[in-house]
């Protein structure tokens, strides 16, 4: 009898599980670990949705989009979190994403008009160095200085692509000259952000391409204010991270609710100190103290997704040939 009861219990449990809708969220790798924003957001959303949120992580933003393209219409994904402005045009062209009504009163330095992609956090790319060193404040000054930098490869990393677009946006036709000037400052190019930042911390270079928010991590999590980011005279290029609903989702309403939750106070308050970016909507409680100590660039640069898509191949070729000489 005991056994029968157990079996019946199991059956009921599976039935109950079958009735709980599952929301599959595809995201990049650094979203899901226990120290990332994933677990807190999952917990908070599950409390109010009566659903089960399942994260699937795939590399970085570019790898995430590649994976979605590989899976195509058969993808189990309902929502994707973690594309950015330089991937948006490509992403939209795949037709894999659906429009959404979700919107919010964004605190972004740019106007947001897109109706497919919902911005959830953002940041400025910047060179980060140690406090006390004399840091150049423009690309031209950097090229003339003997400051050494380590950068990421635009072919395999998001910040690398950001830097490529940054230089192109500011210097256009002259971009190639700027890269030639920077060539002897560049210690090396790494496949991803992690290797570059690790090398900077180990003292291999004076500065590293990262975000203005990087020093906030060291202040808040490590009580270490020895790092600073530099605002450039030309302005700093932005990265806006976005989420979207999949066109083939079997949970369209739940997906919309998740997107709305992502820009609500509950999620936005979590993001700054887990993803180390600025929130897309300022949470009621404001930002942690550490964020107020970091530099804020005066000029925000951002290409439209179409512009970025149009110039990136040419910009890559300029970068490659300037640095290969």
């Amino acid at each position, binding site marked *: 009898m005991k056994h029968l009861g157990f079996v019946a219990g199991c059956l009921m449990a599976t039935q109950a599980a079958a009735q709980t809708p599952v929301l599959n969220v595809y995201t990049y*790798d*650094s979203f*899901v*670990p*226990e*120290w*990332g924003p994933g677990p807190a957001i999952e917990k908070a959303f599950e409390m109010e949705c009566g659903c089960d949120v*399942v*994260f*699937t*992580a*795939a*590399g970085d933003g*570019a*790898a995430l*989009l*590649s*994976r979605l*393209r*590989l*899976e*195509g219409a*058969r993808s*189990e994904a309902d929502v994707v979190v973690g594309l950015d402005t330089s991937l948006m045009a*490509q992403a939209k062209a795949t037709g894999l994403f659906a429009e959404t009504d979700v919107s919010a009163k964004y605190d972004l330095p740019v106007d947001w008009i897109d109706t497919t992609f919902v911005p959830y956090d953002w940041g400025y790319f910047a060179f980060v160095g140690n406090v006390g060193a004399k840091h150049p404040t423009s690309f031209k000054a950097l090229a003339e200085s003997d400051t*050494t930098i380590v950068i990421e*490869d*635009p*072919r*395999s990393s998001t910040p690398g*692509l950001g830097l490529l677009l940054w230089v192109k946006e500011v210097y256009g036709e002259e971009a190639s000259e700027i890269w030639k000037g920077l*060539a002897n400052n*560049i*210690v*090396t*190019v*790494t*496949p*991803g*952000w*992690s*290797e570059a*930042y*690790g*090398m900077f*911390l*180990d*003292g*291999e270079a004076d500065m590293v391409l990262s975000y203005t928010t*990087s020093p906030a*991590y*060291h202040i808040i999590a490590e009580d270490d204010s020895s790092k600073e980011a530099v605002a450039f005279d030309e302005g700093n290029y932005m990265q806006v991270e976005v989420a979207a609903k999949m066109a083939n989702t079997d949970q369209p309403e739940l997906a919309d609710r998740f997107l709305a939750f992502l820009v609500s106070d509950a999620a936005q308050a979590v993001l700054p100190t887990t993803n*180390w970016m600025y929130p897309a909507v300022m949470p009621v409680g404001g930002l942690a103290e550490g964020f107020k100590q970091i530099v804020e660039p005066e000029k925000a640069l951002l290409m439209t997704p179409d512009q970025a898509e149009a110039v990136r*191949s040419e910009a*890559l*070729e300029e*970068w*490659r040939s300037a*640095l*290969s000489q």
Partner: protein
Amino acid sequence: MAQRPVAIGRRSGYVAAALILALLGVPLLAIFLRAGGGVLPGPSDWAALRFTLTQASLSAVFSVVLALPVARALARRRFPGRRLMVALTGAPFILPVVVAVMGLLAIFGARGLLNGVAAHFGLGPWRIYGLHGVVLAHVFFNMPLAVRMILQGWQAIPSERFRLAAQLDLPPRQVFRLLEWPMLRQVLPGAMAAIFAICLASFAVALILGGGPRATTVELAIYQAFLFDFDLGRAAVLALMQTSLVAVAAILALLVTRMDGSGTGLDRALPRWDSPGGWRRLADGAGLALAGVFLIGPLLAVAVAGLSGLGDLPSGLWPAIGNSVVVSLLSALSTVVVALALSAAMSRVVQGIGLLPLALSPLVLGTGYFLILNPVIAPGRLALPVTVLVNTLMALPFSLRVLAPAYLRVEADFGRLADTLALRGLSRLRWLLLPRLRAPLGFAAGLAGALSMGDLGVITLFGSEDRQTLPLLMYRLMGAYRSEAAASCGLILMGLSFGIFWLFDRGGGKSHA
């Protein structure tokens, strides 16, 4: 030889070879089908090919040439700590790439030990970044492997030969000409081809230490095609190019390799009476010391860097360790079984096929499997099995290089006797092959297990929430500013890799190594 009934049967070897061809070919085919054909590589891809060939050739030559004196010294000298030194030669090779690069930079980097010492004497700073840095790193990774392969060759020369040489008072030059050179001709081409092929697929090391886009390898071009351009056709063509290069290298190696047993001995442990004294003794000592410092320095740096963060590791550590150990043990097991089957074919062609996975990009392989699985099942559910499969393929060439020559020697030396005794099939395996092959089997399994432990593999492509391996955890920590915890993860990873390697290698033990 062709008519003899053989051990586990040649057929199993041919079946295994066909399986490997299928496991490599079908994913490529799947990508071509999906892409609707191939796309010819552009000018920057050809530049990448040129750089790849240059660095891989240089790395292979330097690794093997530098390994020669070390292997020879290890073969003819007996000293305390020799076993440990032989075991340590496995270590750099099995380190996760990023960990090893950080270790190398701690010694050779801008703030490294070397530049620190040089600055004292008013020298330097010396820059590691450039082709020389790439070759240095590849030698660090692969020279120990070459030492092991060559050392095995030395140990396969029957001890009676060396005793005879000592009795005849042959000078070292004659010992070399009569005993050692024929063995080297058998071992060196394979070692060189294997290392050439490993370096072909290098990507992170080449880019980081190469100092920028000049050092773009074909593997990086594949990443670009896949991530930046999402051009699957070009990615597949580039992968095919890479594999063809390995095939050419394998064919060349097989053409110059002579495969024969060096004659039968009584299979006894070998004290070497012929070891020359005088300056040669000093030279051997110096060579071993230099190699030791070169190999151990970066490892120590990794260990030291990892100590401080050990208290700060996330709770996901234990499940990640569990996943990694399971994947590693399964990969070791399946690799050795397949390698043994391939060896049983005793055919050069089959051995050549076994080398092919060396340069196949994990990214392309993973993508191919992904495309095949996707219509049937959500690929994320098979993350760990596919990781085992890809790790097995990646480790196979190394295990095969270790196992196949040993297998061939056993058959050449004892095969006729076994035939007379009508030892066939499983009983031949049990009474002749397994006992004779214990040492290479242990080494092969250790290599496969350790390689699999340290490899990030395809898990990122198939990744899902809860299937985290230790290398993935380490990358995630690195990606979240937590470099101290990541360094500790690296230390644990190194310890586990080494532990698995040591366990198998020791278990195979009883060789005179």
